């Protein structure tokens, strides 16, 4: 009920048992293509590839993917419009406004879809241990893992407390709603401290020595997947540079 749609999709994805490294390579490769290649046809190809892979082989629900990709749209639209308004000599559109705004939106949507491909197929608890290989300190990975676990516990408290406040008319006017939100934030903060303290006790009993060492699942890398990734990315680069180069 209080789950996050993208996270739910990641745990249920058909790519759940693929190596997080493989998926990160694919996704980050697509992100770089989206950013660096000409918007036509580079961003379009990246966007289509990310969507097709997510909805096809990774079997991410279209609804989840669509909603998530729509979220940053407000920022992208406002940001792109603002960037092509010209102030000099009275406000007006820049001469190449449509083209520049289109390029911005294209890069952003393609990049967003590429990140979302990783987000909807790989749970954080698979990704975080992989950060160790990038020489992120163990302490940081452990703090982030606890954050990931506790944010669901706290989100549930947040929703329940808010519901209880609403039932008792705590959000019936703006003024009351403000006061209730302050109480809500304080209640969630005290719960987070309480949770941490109780987990400390619980984990001491489980023999916690120095840190929260866990054993990630074995998710072996696939040569075929890697080969397909490299081939696909190369194809996107070549096609984009040929077509985009010819066009521009």
């Amino acid at each position, binding site marked *: 009920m209080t789950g996050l749609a993208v996270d739910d999709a990641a745990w249920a994805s058909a790519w759940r048992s693929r190596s997080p490294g493989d998926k990160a390579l694919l996704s980050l490769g697509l992100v770089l293509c989206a950013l660096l290649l000409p918007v036509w046809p580079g961003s379009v190809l990246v966007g289509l590839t990310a969507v097709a892979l997510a909805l096809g082989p990774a079997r991410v629900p279209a609804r989840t993917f669509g909603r998530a990709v729509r979220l940053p749209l407000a920022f992208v639209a406002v940001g792109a419009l603002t960037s092509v308004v010209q102030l000099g000599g009275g406000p007006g559109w820049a001469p190449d406004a449509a083209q520049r705004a289109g390029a911005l939106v294209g890069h952003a949507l393609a990049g967003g879809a590429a990140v979302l491909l990783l987000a909807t197929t790989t749970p954080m608890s698979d990704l975080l241990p992989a950060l160790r290989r990038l020489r992120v300190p163990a302490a940081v990975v452990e703090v982030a893992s606890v954050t990931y676990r506790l944010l669901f516990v706290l989100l549930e*408290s947040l929703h329940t407390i808010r519901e209880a406040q609403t039932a*008792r008319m*705590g959000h019936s006017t703006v003024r009351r709603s403000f006061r209730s939100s302050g109480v809500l934030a304080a209640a969630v903060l005290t719960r987070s401290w309480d949770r941490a303290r109780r987990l400390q006790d619980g984990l001491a009993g489980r023999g916690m020595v120095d840190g929260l060492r866990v054993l990630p699942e074995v998710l072996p890398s696939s040569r075929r997947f890697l080969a397909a990734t490299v081939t696909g990315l190369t194809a996107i680069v070549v096609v984009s540079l040929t077509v985009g180069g010819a066009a521009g």
Partner: protein
Amino acid sequence: MSHHHLAATGLVVGYTRGTRVLDGASLSIPEGRRLALLGANGSGKTTLLRCLSGALEPARGQVTVDGVAVARSRRGLQAHRQVVQLVLQDPDDQLFSASVAQDVSFGPLNLGLPEPAVRERVAEALELLGVGGLASRPTHQLSFGERKRVAIAGAVAMRPCVLLLDEPTAGLDPTAVTEALAALARLGASGSTVVLSTHDVDLALAWADEVAVVVGGQVVQGRPDDVLGDDELLARARLDRPWTLTLGARLQELGLLPAGPLPRDVPGLLAALPTAVGAQLPTSAQ
């Protein structure tokens, strides 16, 4: 307190992992009576209660008060919250203020009542729940059972016509259960309609005027001994048969209990047993 008739018809609520939580659930809550809502964990009891309280909007179907559908507008929901109050299972997520009195006053203050009226309601609610002595205590010092009763007092202080309680006895020891049920009896006597959810079939049999079982996203409602004697239904709902009924039926078969409705609890069963039986019989047991 005026009585209102709360009902739900054909509620359908979303999906968790591919199955509908509620799939055409209908329920009619008799005014001024005690209804027990039974179901296994995850059966949708809480979801149904949240729909009835207005906290959750069903995908289809409607909740009605005296036959009129509850409007989902801000104003409609606010009016509904003065008729129906829901107390959730975990008291910790409902006690968000520092002291007991402060927490119970949250609702009445939001109703815009003047201070003396608020104080009166707080005192009255705490008294009804049998926790009048806790008013000035910090909420985090209370025992689990006390926290549960203070959370209920917070809802009672809104003076709802219908009080919905999600698992009010879960986690309580026998003495605390007895105290909680006594508090609910006082509420009933003061005119409230009380609905509680539980998976304790014996509790439901002993306490309720009427029971409703949530099973397969729908609701089967009826008299306690009818519904709780239906083995096929109970099996589908992953509930046990109340042992008072199991044993009572066997004793009735043996001719040790009079024909007719079976006793609903231990004292009833003990009282209904004969005072003496012929002594030649125990040999028939191995």
